[in-house]
Structures are given as structure tokens and as C-alpha cells.
């Protein structure tokens, strides 16, 4: 099987495109970073790719609700080609602002497997402040092609609008039942609500990432592309000191697994 090809979408204000492309390449994919204007001119470009990733940033400044303008463009100009991508088994990943875009465009949470619609959103952090901090995360099941059951990850978040909310209790019940909660913020004690700052934004049910019904679309607030090597962790010098000194080769960071899983799925 040829190397999977991943389209890294770029728009005014996207700012994690370089490192996100790098993460996919490190995992064995070929990537191209393409400006949304090129896709609006020719949406068929998308048909050449096995996956699309919407990286973090502040698309169009996020001066109105985060991600809303790019979401409109996705929906209008690329809706059909994105549906084609999903129907042929492709993957869509939205990180941070990309997650916000997927939520605003309706690709996430998307309908229930039964087709019933779901309503959820990402709003201002409870603290009303931007926050950059490392969080512990857990993936509870195998539903998402990017994740595996029991996978624990430590990753940084960096956002001002990451608080997951729903329109009604029904929505969150359906999401939980459908195994759509891809990642949860993890507190000190398993089984208890994480609380601030383990849950850095006040998200309902400690939800940090969501899948669609097919498991092919993943959106998450944390940044896996910022933890590709062990020396990116804020406490790596403490770990290295336990192991005497830093190893001579680059040990992997925990975020790398998300890209690896995606590329393995695409190559299979």
C-alpha cells in the first residue's frame, strides 16, 4: 500500500499547520498543506487524499465564535467532497480550533447512528481566560480510528473556548451511549469528576474530544502534535534524571500515537 496522503487545511489564522503536517509525516504519511481558497476554487482536490486535518489556530481571528467563518466555508464549498471522503472510509481530524470548526460545521457531533440529530457546542472557558496547561486524558473505547481503549495520554491544551456543552441532557446521554466521547480529562482519582485545573475549561462530563458515529471523525481540544518527543513534556528533566541522563535517541511523546493510529488505519 502506498503512503497515505493527508491534506493539512490552512486558512488565514491557522497556526499549527507546520507541526501537524510534520507529525503525520513522522508517522509515515505524505502531507500537503493547502489553503482553503484553493479548495474553494476546486473542491475535487480533496479526492486525492485519504484524510483531512484541520489544525489549531485562530481561523479568521476567531473574533466571532471560534471557528465559525471557516466552518461556513467548509460547509458551503467542501461539504460534498468531505462526505465523499468519509463514504470511502477517509479520516477527518480537528485539533483545537479544528475541533471548534468541526463542531460549528455540524460534522461533529454529527447525528446518532440512528440518524437522530444531536446538539452540542464549545464555548468560553469557565475561567473566561485563555489557558496553556498539560492535562491527563483517557480514551475509554476503540470506537475512534485514532484511538484505542485504555489509552492514557498526557497532552497540552491551549485555548480560550474549549468548554464542551450540550443543548439538553438527552444529547450527552446519547453521546455517552454511542461511545462518542473519544477523550476525557482525567483527575487525581479515576471515577471522580476531574475538576479545575485537570478539566481546564469546565467541560461537561470532562469531555475533551468527540467522535462521529462512524469513528472516522475526531475532534479534540488538546494538541497531540505538541508531544511527539519525550523532551517536549514539561517534566522530562525529572524523568530523565530518574533514568540517569537523557537517552541519546529521541524517545516518542504520547501524542504521536494518534497520528500513528491514523496512518496505520489509512494504510490498511
Amino acid at each position, binding site marked *: 500500500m502506498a503512503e497515505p496522503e493527508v491534506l493539512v487545511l*490552512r486558512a*488565514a*489564522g*491557522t*497556526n*499549527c499547520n*507546520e*507541526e501537524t503536517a*510534520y507529525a503525520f509525516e*513522522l508517522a509515515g504519511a505524505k502531507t500537503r498543506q493547502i*489553503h482553503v*481558497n*484553493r479548495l474553494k476554487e476546486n473542491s475535487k482536490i480533496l479526492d486525492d487524499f485519504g484524510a483531512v486535518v484541520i489544525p*489549531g*489556530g*485562530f481561523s*479568521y*481571528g*476567531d*473574533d*466571532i*465564535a471560534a471557528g*465559525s*467563518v471557516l466552518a*461556513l466555508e467548509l460547509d*458551503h464549498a467542501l461539504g460534498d467532497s468531505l462526505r465523499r471522503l468519509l463514504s470511502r472510509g477517509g479520516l477527518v481530524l480537528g485539533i483545537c480550533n479544528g475541533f471548534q470548526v468541526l463542531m460549528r460545521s455540524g460534522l461533529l457531533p454529527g447525528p446518532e447512528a440512528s440518524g437522530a440529530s444531536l*446538539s*452540542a*457546542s464549545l*464555548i*468560553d*472557558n*469557565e*475561567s*473566561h*481566560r*485563555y*489557558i*496553556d*496547561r*498539560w492535562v491527563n486524558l483517557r480514551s475509554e473505547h476503540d470506537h475512534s480510528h485514532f484511538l484505542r481503549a485504555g489509552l492514557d495520554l498526557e497532552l*497540552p491544551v*491551549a485555548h480560550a473556548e474549549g*468548554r464542551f*456543552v450540550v443543548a439538553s441532557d438527552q444529547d450527552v446521554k446519547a453521546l455517552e451511549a454511542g461511545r462518542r466521547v473519544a477523550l476525557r480529562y482525567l483527575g487525581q482519582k479515576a471515577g471522580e469528576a476531574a475538576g479545575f485545573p485537570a478539566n481546564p475549561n469546565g467541560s461537561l462530563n470532562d469531555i475533551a474530544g468527540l467522535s462521529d458515529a462512524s469513528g472516522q471523525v475526531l475532534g479534540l481540544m488538546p494538541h497531540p*502534535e*505538541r508531544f*511527539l518527543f519525550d*523532551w*517536549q513534556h*514539561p*517534566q522530562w*528533566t*525529572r524523568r*530523565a*534524571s530518574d533514568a*540517569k*541522563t*537523557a537517552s541519546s535517541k*529521541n524517545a516518542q511523546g504520547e501524542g504521536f500515537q494518534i497520528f500513528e493510529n491514523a496512518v496505520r488505519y489509512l494504510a490498511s
Partner: protein
Amino acid sequence: MSTWQVEIGTRAQLGDALGQAVERDLPWLDLERAGPVRTRRLYLLDAALARTQVDLLATRLLGDEVVEEIKVRKVEDGSQRDASLSAVTVCRKPGVMDPVEASVRRGASELGIDLGAFRSGTLYLFEGEVNPDELQKIGANILANPVVDDILCGSTTLTFAATSGAYVFERIDVPLPDRDEDLLKLSQDLGLSLNLAEMQTIKAWFDEAGRDPSDIELETLAQTWSEHCKHKTFAADVRFRGEVIPNLLKSTVFRATKELDRDFCVSVFVDNAGIVEFDDKHNLCFKVETHNHPSAIDPYGGAGTGIGGVIRDILGTGLGGKPVANTNVFCLGYPDADPNKLPAGTIHPLRVLKGVVSGVRDYGNRMGIPTVNGGLFFDERYTGNPLVYAGTVGIIPKDRCLKETKPGDKIVALGGATGRDGIQGATFSSRELHEDSESLDGSAVQIGNAITEKRTMDVLLQARDRGLYRNVTDCGAGGFSSAVGEMGELTGARVDLANAPTKYPGLSYREIWISEAQERMVFAVPPENLEEMLALAASEDVEACVLGEFTDSKRLELMFDGHVIGDMTMEFLHNGLPKTVLEAVWDEPAEEDLADFEPAPFETVLKKLMAHPNVASKEWVIRQYDHEVQSTSCIKSLVGVDLDGPGDAAVHAPVLGSTKGFALGCGMNPHYADLDPYHMATAAIDEALRNVVAVGGDPDRCSILDNFSWGNTAKPDRLGALVRASQGCYDAAMAYRTPFISGKDSLNNEYATSAGTICIPHTLLVSALAIVDDVRQSVTMDLKRAGSSIYLVGLTGDELGGSLAMRVQQRRGNHAPQLDRRTALPTLRALHLAIKTGQVLSCHDLSEGGLAVTAAESAFAGGFGLDLDLGLMPTRGTLDAHTRLFSESLTRFLVEVAPENCAAFEEGFAGLTLTRLGESQETKRLRLRLDQKVLIDCDLDPLHELHRRSLTDILEGNHRG
């Protein structure tokens, strides 16, 4: 005329995060009772839109029906909101950048709607007890800044601003009077900030030419000759202690760089930033700027455009660097100052702090550049004139470092459109601030739009790699005037200002020429590349225009729609400034009588130090900055077991896939300048180098920047202090063999009140950039284990003068720390070698608060205790316990070494001062002894808590000043 009004608020059950943030600020004005606070976003839309279009905009773009209540109504002009509501509406003043508008226009066009007139704002509803005067007070002090925002209280509703009419061209000439006093008055009346000799020189040149200058020619000269652009004080000859120092800057700071002649320097003091070697494909560039006066008037906009401006400096270095890290340092009045005891006309330091942090956050985060290093420094003398430093490191391909304009190249401007923003910023920054600055100088304020700059950067870097242009610079102070004048200095330039896109109609040619509208870059594009350059810009929605072309006339020719409005030689513009000789004096301050000084109990002093805002944790600030975007971060600002230990410097590996990196740190201590600015300067350099070496930076491949913020140097004592500091810079740079590669000065930082002038402390910020061969060799400041040996590197002297320990005891002290120029560099080299070879578990430099503070920080950050005997400390002369604990002597570190590495570690310091003071322990106590006498023996947790909470509590309103 009527309008559509869209009001959007979060559904009640989800809470109102903005409203709660306002509630947290209300106690600060003693107005808790005004809450609870509800907030709504307000959008004013064109009445010409159909109801269906407004609904579509409201639900698809402006609001989110899942979680928000959206109300749409048509409002007749002059109609009033329900008068019983305690409401405040805040929106940007007409003409001030409102980034929301650009986003909404883009989204509307996606929905197929021509938006027409638009305005956005925020509505605050106070459900508690509050009267109209109090609403005003809340509006002006918590919700908004009257300089840039309209604040409508009570029932007044938002309306559209009147649009200005078209500009009718008229050339304006300014006759220059003969009498000296009239010439000076003219300079003042026009806000030119030119002195008499300069005005006389200009008059002579135009007399020779046989005509009067046009207004735009005078402005061009004022901008180009401003202190901000020409650094005429620093370049002047100075009479000091019986001798004349020719060109102060060249005799000190430049001279060190020149004499050191380090081979890693690629380009120093000539471009927008200094350039040094990095790896085999790339160089690094580094620049730090000040944005003091704009930030005093509008902290949010001033700090944001400060960071925006220094980012453009990197984009305009060589053929364009890619920014990889931002830094910022703020010097402010005490954030818990009594609001009733501030100098008239000043903004409270807490508001300034929150404003500048938000400004840096909103701009830096949007640019996708990690904000990785910085500092906060507090002193009451900064209250009227706060300092805002912003810095950027860039990476640039080795073959893109040189630039050259050729005649025939097109002058192309990219980025934002031109408006009336920041008119006369360069000359404004060259004046003193005063009580009325806020009302008089509002037009000097700029608000940026980071996304415009991000777009421009994306296009610039692609155009650079395609080789589409030969020269580039940013529009900073002085706008097009400075940028075009600078790029065409050796050739000549002809410009037609009618070609510049403007934000709104009505701008005169003069306003276009000197506007400091943000986010603009100017390029020299060979004619054959013009089409491709413009197409590239258009493909990513970046506005571009051809202003004119570079010529071989050696003249600056200005036109408007074909009419000549200015014509001067580049020679006069750039070299006509008359040279001046300035007077400087320096007298050592009188000794403080310390005969009756009895130190407070040591534990009390240590607790005061941990709680002092200069020392206390800056976590509240740091976590609002994205310090990890670009995925290059290796050592972060907050480290240790609880991720709140204060790291010494940041380490980044800027090339994805490589572990070669750099360490970035800074140093400053203005309090030493109260004793001697010479020692202040050497200490700042020592601290900057200590910080980068402590994390693993190579002292032999380190570069530094100087950023002076000074008082009014027309006063000989201020200038004398500058001379002393500059001499300190030279001596320390030579001792460390570390070159200055770029720098900037900001003078006239004084605040005039009716009671007299307040001068800031003489402040030199030194920023250091050191190469780290492999970032995996870096170390952090937190203790790693129990049972390690704890070493003190360096010698301790009787140097409590200007120290923080004396300050928290309301004293100044007498001896500022002095640099030992003989041992300083060998000490840093020995430490670096030890770190590089993996002998060091943790390392923390000694700075404010001396050994006691450093030991406490390393201990709580590591979660281990310390037992140290200060009797073993090598000293210069006999020292008492108080001095041993808190002296701020230079070039000292506390280093943790595993027992098995101690022999090798000690061997590396042969001939230098190194002592084992004790060891780390499981018990979380800090125990500092003098032989067997216990000086401090306390639990680490309360010290940790003081450090963690003190500044945060003030910022979150949990503390009353």
C-alpha cells in the same frame, strides 16, 4: 434611519463567563453590590438588509442557537433602551480597529450577503444596586478604555458612526519664521518634537532651495530625525567628567561588538534585528523593542501593537525571518497600590498589568508564535510611565540574510489598509508623558489586528522562498515615511500616496504618509516579479498596492494623484541632522546610614520576599500565553513537580526534526541603578547570561541585546547615568566576550504632575540568546532527588545595596553587586561543561532575594527539602548571617549534583569558587544554618503557597491594597 440590532447571550443555565469575570473585578471599585452581571454581544446591522438575511447572519455566523439566546429587532434612531436597566454598552470608537468587523464581513460574503454598515459591541447588564455615576466608573475602569472605546451608560443605544467625506486635495506649505522662538513654537504647535538647532537647519536648507517646506516634508524630517528613529542622544557626543565621548553608542555598546569580532555574528546593528549563526542551513535573528508611551495610554492596544511591531521587525530582517519565539517584560507600579493615591491622570497599575497581558496574549497567540520568556518588575516610579518590552526571535535561511534596493524596483506595500491610527507615534514617543497625555494623544494609539499580520506573514515567507523581492522592511514608527525613506536611502524613491488603500475616505496625503496603521510591510520588487507578487498576495486575501518605485535620483519625491507634494534629497533627510554635544554629570548618591539598621527575623524577611510581586509566581500571566505552539518547546517557563517552579530561561528547538536549539533569557535590576547605573548594567548582563547558562546555553555562543528605558536625557544627571550604564555594558560584554547584536533605547520616560516630575528608575533590559547544541542536555531549576550534593558556585560579598531584601525592609543599602570580570566567564564555562556532560541534576541562579530565595524555590519546585550550612560559603570579607542569606552578589548558582558525579564536578571548577553547602532531603523543610546556629528552619509548603498565591490573589481580586 433605523438599524437592525442583534443581541446574543449565553443561555442562563450555562452561566456567563464574561459576566463572572467582571464580577470578580467589581470589589476593586468597592462595587460588589452592582452584580450579578449579565453580558450580551451586540451587533448593529444595516437597515437595508432583509429580515431573512439578518436571521441567517444571526444564527449561522454571529450566534450559536445550541447554547445562546439570539434576539433580533429593528431599532429606530433615537429610541432608548429600557431606562430601568443598569446597562453599559461598550464598542470601539469609530475609526479604531475592530477585528470583529473583518470576520463578519468575510462570513457574510460566504453567506452571499452584502453586509453594508456594521458595528459591534458588548452590553453589560448590572442586576444589583448601582447608580449612573458608578456605572460610568465601572465602564471606564473595568469594562473599557475611554481612549479607544465608546462607553454608553444607561438607556442610550448603539448607533452607526457618521462617515467622513471624501478628501479634497490641497497642497499645504508651511512658511518658516525667522525668529528662534517662533521656530520653536512652530515645532511645538505641529507636534514635531524638533529642537531649535534642528529647526534652524531645516530653515537653512529650504532657504537655500528658495521655497517653503510642505507640511509633509516637515513631517518626514520630524519622523526621520526623531529620537525614536535616529537615536540622536545615543549617537551624540557627550561631555562627561572633563572629556568628550564621541558618539556614546559607538564608544561603548558598538565598540564591544566590534572589538570582540565574534565569527558567529552575521549582521549586527544594521538591519531591523541582529543576525547570528545557528545550524548549517539557518541563522537566528533577535530583536527587542519598547512600546512604553502607547501602553501608558492604552495598555491593551499598546502592548498588542508592541508585539505586533517587533514581529514585523523580524519579518523585515534580511529578506524575512520566520518568528519562532516571543518575549515580553513589563515594568509597572505596584499592582496593589491604593487607587486614591496615584498620580493624577494615570491608569491603576493593576489595570495596566491586565491590559498589557491581554494585549500580548491576544496578539501573540493569534500569530502562532510561542511566548516563552519574560518578566514582571514592580516599582512605584513606573506608575505614570509603565514600560512594555516585546521581543521576537526569528529563524532565517542562510542565503536570505542580505538585502539591497535597486533603481527601478517597484515599491509594494502589503498588509493592512491605512487609517488615522497612531499619527505622530514616533514624535509622540520622544516626549514626556503628563496628566493630559491621555486626552491629547489619543490619536497616537493603535489597535492591531493580528490576523492581518498573520496573513501578511504567510505571504511574505512564500514570496521570500520564491525570491520575488530584493528588499523588505516593516512599517513601524513613522509609517510609510520611515519605511520608504529607509529603503530608498542609497537610491531614491518616487511615491504617489493616492495609490495607498485606506480604511475609510477622507485621509489627507499627510495622514497617509505618516500614519502608523499596523500590519504593513514595504517591499522592493523587481518589475518582472510584480505580477507574481500581487497574485500571490491576492490568493491569500492580502491587500497589496504599488506605491511607486525606487529611482536613481537620490531624492525622495512625494506625489498625490500626480501633484508634487514633497521633494528632498536623501542626503539631507538622512545626514542633515545637526550633530550635538550634550552635557552629562554623574554624582554617586550619598551613603545610607545603616548604623541603626536591625534586620527583621530572617524567616519574616524570606516570607516577604516570596510574596513580593517581583519574586512571586507569574503563573496567572504565563498560562494565558500559548508557549508551546510550533511544537518546539523543550524547557518551559514553569517547571517542577507542581509545574509552578520559576524556570530560569526557555529552551526551544526551532527546526522540526532537529534537537539543536537555543536558550532565551533576560536580566534587569533597575534598583541597582539607584546606587550606580554602571553596576546596574553589568548586573543585567550577568543575570541574562546566568539565566541562559543555567538551563544549558553555551556561554561561548551567546549574543545579547540592550534595551534602555531612561528619563529625559536633556537633563545632565539622566544623561550621566546613561553614560555610566553604557560604560558598564562595554566592560561586561568584553569580560564575557559576548557581543551586543541589536538594541533600542526609549528616552523621556518621565511623568509630569503638578507636584513635579517622576522619573522612572534607569532601566536596562538585557536579553540573551545562547545556542544549545542538543536540547536534550538542558536542565531545570527544580531539585530532582533526596541525598544529592548541593553546591554554591561563586563568591558572596557585602552586596545588599539595591537588593530586594533591603527593599522589603524599607531600606536601600549601599553596595550594589559588582561583576568580577576576571572569573565570570571561566565560571560560566565550567558550569556549562558540567551541564553538557550530564553531571548536573538541577541548577538555579541566585538573583533577587539571594541564596535564601533560590534555595526555597529549588526546593519547593522539586518537592524535596534542603539542609545547607552557610558557614561554608566562600565570602569576600567577613559577612553577617543576613548578608549571607540575602546578598545579591553576581555570577552565583545553586547546583544539585548526584554523589557519584561530585568528584568530576568539583574537578571542573578547579581554580574557581565552588563549595558544597549541604544536601537535599526527603523532608520538605528549608533549613539554612550558620555552622550550628539555625538561621531559617521552616516548612516549604507555606513558602510555596506564598509564592504561588501572592500575585495571583491580587490579579484575581482576592486581595485589597
